[in-house]
């Protein structure tokens, strides 16, 4: 529903107030007097007075979501039709800025930006690395990223910034040296698996609020980083920078690092492992078990879970029938494991949304698409990654609700994946999982933005197009990622074709620009059918 509202509104340049009202009515629909709502002046009063109520009711998201997009859109009326309709972003190279704070391949990026602008792409996504900026604790060097932002601005493109609090192995961008150094003496700041192996690409969520970083908690450090970013980039906020993704875990995604090594393409991914074995996680588990009156359950993770590369049936935990996951213990453990992840997401997203709440920038978080084994009843890949989503339980409810609470939007990767191209024996279904998450998000009115997993997946562009233009369209998509392959003769022509095909479809009459007055009217008359259409 949100999607539809914003799409049409961005075309019609409806003012903020009116939009607000429109959504308020959605939330409180029948109890409100329609006429009152749509009379302009009293309306803004009621708008304000209601905000606090919504906050308490955990419904602020609606306002917030409406709040940002149309305003931004109306600021840039010069953008072409296709852009108003579907905002396509392209990711810049992960190492656009690496060590030394200079822009790598500046000339190539410059040429690339120009090409993208000419193609009609809306903007670019820029990964901003903790390990690049904060070389010393509390000291931030943004110069390389400022240079990129300026290039993007000069090119007339928008910028979506991804704040990365993790490390990357390819290209190699480590965590800040001082963090790594702390980790050397204090490995418990990292996640660990059952065999005690640490995952050193990001901090364990269990230390979020522990003062493990030279007397500061990771959350405080993230906060300092975000605030420095905000003030440094304030000239770009809302104009060039339209969105920010908060890094939430491995690869920036809200999940446990249930796979330490990146999956090899074409092979069947194993189920992964639970990551609850670092000291702090175990402490949390212990407390939780004791509080639940089952102290013995708090001594460790499931003993009968398979290892990383194994199939679900190789041990008894994930078995489709009679697996421990369905036992009371299983429920106990999985509830805890998943709720820790959601709380972690909540901590970071509430932090970042409070920092950026007064700007016109949208805040996003990335939720992974753990599609392997989706066709089994247990969905083991999702369980190990921290999503308690099984055949009988929608684990994304809590996640979507958490995003809604923080007025954040969700980025979903993997929109280029189609079931057809998955290994048959993997029992995987990216499309069904995507549909499930999106439905859940719709229900909680969390807007979803899309991303592809990798450029060059077979049939990827068609699948993206399907997702973007289908009956439940995405209006913001980030295509990953600029680089040699992206511009190669094998890839770039098809990408060009893809972008052009996105702008080809005829505009629906509702999407055509119209006067504000007309638009207001059409809102009144067309809003109800819209709702039904979208929620149906």
């Amino acid at each position, binding site marked *: 529903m949100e999607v539809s509202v914003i799409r049409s509104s961005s075309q019609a340049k409806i003012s903020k107030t009116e939009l607000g009202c429109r959504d308020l009515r959605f939330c409180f629909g029948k109890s409100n007097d329609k006429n009152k709502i749509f009379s302009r002046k009293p309306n803004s009063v009621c708008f304000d007075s209601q905000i606090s109520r919504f906050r308490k009711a955990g419904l602020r998201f609606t306002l917030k979501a409406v709040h940002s997009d149309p305003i931004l859109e109306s*600021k*840039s009326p*010069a953008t072409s039709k296709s852009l108003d309709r579907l905002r396509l972003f392209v990711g810049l*190279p992960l*190492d656009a800025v*690496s*060590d030394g*704070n*200079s*822009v*790598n*391949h*500046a*000339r*190539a*990026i*410059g*040429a*690339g*930006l*120009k*090409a993208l*602008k*000419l*193609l009609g792409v809306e903007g670019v996504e820029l990964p901003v690395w903790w390990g690049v900026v904060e070389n010393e604790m*509390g*000291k*931030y*060097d*943004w*110069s390389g990223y*400022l*240079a990129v932002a*300026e*290039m993007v*601005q*000069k*090119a*007339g*493109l928008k910028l979506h910034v991804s704040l990365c609090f993790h490390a990357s192995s390819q*290209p190699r961008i480590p965590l800040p040296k001082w963090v790594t150094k702390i980790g050397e003496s204090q490995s418990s700041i990292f996640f660990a698996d059952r065999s005690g192996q640490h995952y050193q690409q990001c901090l364990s969520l269990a230390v979020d609020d522990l003062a493990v970083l030279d007397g500061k908690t990771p959350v405080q450090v993230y906060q*300092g980083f975000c*605030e*420095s970013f*905000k*003030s*440094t980039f304030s000239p770009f906020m809302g*104009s*060039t920078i339209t969105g920010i993704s908060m890094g939430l875990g491995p690869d920036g995604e809200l999940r446990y690092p249930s796979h330490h090594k990146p999956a090899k393409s074409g092979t069947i991914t194993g189920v992964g492992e639970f990551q609850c074995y670092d000291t702090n996680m175990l402490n949390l588990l212990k407390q939780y078990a004791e509080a639940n009156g089952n102290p013995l359950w708090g001594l460790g993770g499931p003993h009968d879970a398979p290892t990383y590369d194994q199939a679900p049936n190789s041990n008894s935990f994930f078995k489709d029938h009679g697996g421990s996951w369905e036992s009371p213990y299983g429920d106990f453990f999985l509830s805890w494991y998943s709720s820790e992840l959601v709380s972690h997401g909540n901590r970071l997203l509430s932090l970042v949304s409070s920092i950026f709440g007064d700007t016109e920038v949208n805040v996003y978080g990335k939720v992974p698409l753990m599609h392997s084994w989706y066709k089994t009843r247990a969905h083991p890949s999702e369980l190990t990654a921290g999503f308690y989503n099984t055949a009988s339980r929608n684990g994304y409810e809590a996640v979507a609700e958490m995003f809604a609470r923080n007025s954040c939007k969700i980025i979903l990767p993997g929109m280029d994946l189609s079931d057809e191209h998955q290994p048959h024996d993997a029992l995987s279904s990216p499309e069904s999982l995507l549909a499930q998450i999106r439905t859940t998000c719709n229900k909680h009115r969390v807007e979803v933005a899309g991303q592809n997993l990798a450029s060059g997946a077979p049939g990827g562009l068609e699948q993206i197009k399907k997702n973007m233009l289908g009956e439940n369209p995405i209006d913001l998509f980030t295509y990953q990622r*600029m*680089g*040699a392959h*992206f*511009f*190669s*003769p*094998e890839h*770039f022509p098809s990408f*060009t074709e893809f972008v*052009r095909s996105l702008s080809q479809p005829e505009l629906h009459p509702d999407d055509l620009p119209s006067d504000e007055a007309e638009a207001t009217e059409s809102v009144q008359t067309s809003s109800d059918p819209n709702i039904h259409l979208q929620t149906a």
Partner: protein
Amino acid sequence: MAAVTIDSLLQNPTLLFRPKAKVMLKPPRSLDCSRNRKLPLSRGSCFCSFNPRRTIHVVRASSSETALIGNFDTSSSDDIFYKDIFPVKRIEKVEGKFFIRLDRSKDQHDWQLTVGCSLPGKWILHWGVSYLGDSGSEWDQPPKGMRPPGSIPIKDYAIETPLKKLSEGDIFHEVKIDFNPSSEIAAIHFVLKDEETGAWYQHRGMDFKVPLVDYLEDDGNTVGAKRGFGVLSGALQQFSNVLLKSEASHADSQNNSIESKDSKNKNRCLEGFYEEQSIVKEVSVGNLVSVAVRKSPETGKVIVCLETDIPGDVVVHWGVCRDDAKIWEIPAAPYPPETTVFKNKALRTLLQPKATGNRSGALFTLDEEHFGFLFVLKLDDNTWLKFKENDFYVPLLGTSSVPGQYGQSDITTEEISSKSYTDGIINEIRNLVSGLSSEKSQKTKTKEVQESILQEIEQLAAEAYSIFRSSITTVPEEVVSETETTKPAVKISSGTGTGFEILCQGFNWESHKSGRWYMELKEKASEISSLGFTVIWLPPPTESVSPEGYMPKDLYNLNSRYGTIAELKELVKSLHEVGMKVLGDVVLNHRCAHFKNQNGVWNIFGGRLNWDDRAVVADDPHFQGRGNKSSGDNFHAAPNIDHSQEFVRKDLKEWLGWLREEIGYDGWRLDFVRGFWGGYVKDYLEASEPYFAVGEYWDSLSYTYGEMDHNQDSHRQRIVDWINATNGTAGAFDVTTKGILHSALERCEYWRLSDKKGKPPGVVGWWPSRAVTFIENHDTGSTQGHWRFPGGKEMQGYAYILTHPGTPAVFYDHIFSHHRSEIANLISVRNRNGIHCRSLVKIVKAERDVYAAIIDEKVAMKIGPGYYEPPSGSQRWSLALEGRDYKVWETS
């Protein structure tokens, strides 16, 4: 917000990625990180060539941060209230050579292709091969054995091999490729790449191509048969392959069949060659201009101290302003030494060299009431250094220099220099590109898309690709410099001459009557040359059945109605003396026989070339030839020669060579080339190596119900196809343009002069460099008048062809008529502005009663009774010529 619009992107692509030298600024580490702290930003790598750097404006010399500003002469830093360093970019040209050599390797068995380059740089040969029987322009990877050590395969179609110096002392970086000539490889294709800058060196936007099998040699003729160098024409073929349509593939298959037939008894034979071209690399050099302003405590005056490390004479073109409007004023004296007043608008001061180092500078003493100091730097007449296309601005009031103030925080400079040449090349490429796309849509009827934007995108993507690909590792780039590829100096090709040719048709249909035309023309030689013509076309010289010369009989008998062979030689000599090149009119399509065969048909030849009826095409029943079918249309008045016969071609090549040697002809006007395949023409031209050649491919335009069609694409396509078949070795008369001019002028339908892509509608719109534009010749006009140009409108026609690209040809009758001075004036405008066969036309009006165009941004013209004046924008236009229904302007 969106600072750059798409329009400007398209217009000015060269300026977009100007290099940026990075000035490494170490941010002070000791700063505490309060969040509003503005760090000095090293935003060195920026879009659009800017190198902005936030500088710190030290108010009253507040801290040690001044150290950042560098080694500036700060004798009394206490008083300095403004200080700034402007990084500036200059382009320095580095010239060098690169060569291509094909020769036998030491063991005399294999062959070796060597490519070398003398410019410093990290040169990579990016290359591939094509195999016999390949169609299209795709590359393949060469066989493993052919790859020199150190080669890296690029996908499955190319190889990259670094060029190396054989020893330290060598000037050239070289790469050698050995190959076996008996392999199936048809050609080696390559481009040269400078890995340091990502710049590609191509041949006019195409690959270099070294054909390995194109030539089929007669066994007895290998000695002394000089070959045209294959690269240039090969490159054209490359282009042509894209442009080529069905007819061409038809031609290809013919070619193949001939080759296979011939190769049964002939060996294919390679010839070595060596070709050297100059190559210019533009290297951007970063310099600094530092400015400090201080107040003299004694006098209360403001002293501006300007210094730079730019070598050579640097003139500061400067003034002051009173307010933010930044209107230039000349301040009161005193001025620094070496100052002159420029047009009462500004002052010019030559910077004086400093005693230390390579710096120069000046001190400007000003009254304190001035608001700001404005300047630009002038390096030479064409090179100015500006600040973001604006003046450099230095605030003089101490209070105004607040840190972070807009205007100072965004310091950028860029060079505007005379780039017309590179721009011209880019324009040419674009010209070709859009010609290509216009054809595409014509052929495939695809929907209207902005092909040019897509092309732009593709170019940018290719640029990005080459850089990303070449540097997978992440090395921080300290200095990113960009080079503009400047093409080697004008290359003469038989299709274009120098590109600046203007052709005179030196006879009419009556010229044979006096019997001493050669002598009459000789007297006019210097006169014709003085009008600005560079090439003259003489009448057909051979013995002929008809007096005009177009029914040749004995090709080696050059005594004709125009004069004797001795007189001809004398004429050619005089023409050479006045600096003109001479074209012989050669009739290759047909030849009149000396004798009858047994059936009483005239098809047996005599004289030195005593061919029999095998030399005559088989498909004209009048002449009962025993040769193959004609490869073109038939001319029915005489036996058509069968050019598919090896002995015929050999004889004709020999004859052309003899004409070159004996008479001194520089090139050819080829009669009735519709009659045989253009591929044979290519063969003849490669054998006779003319300076210039033009073919007469004259067929009818398209008419519907007696009215000429607006779209003459199929007509020009046929001409382009022919040029293409000659591999671009010859130009062709632009009959299409003449036809369209007829209708446009006669019927006042000037809209016809723009095709649906906004380009000229004739051959000149598609392949300008090969279009020889004309409005009249001995057939169409003169006393024959087969297709006479609309009377009284000739000067409009000349105003068109003499201002437009293509190689214009002027008919003798018009030169020696009352049009003479007007034609001479048009030619001088053309020469003065350097309009050439590849100049870029921008059609600004094509309406019922007026057509107007701007050529190379230098010449504006209009024809037709309607009104047009060039825009009064940044360029100032002044009227250069005016005549009946035409006007020509040039930039002043």
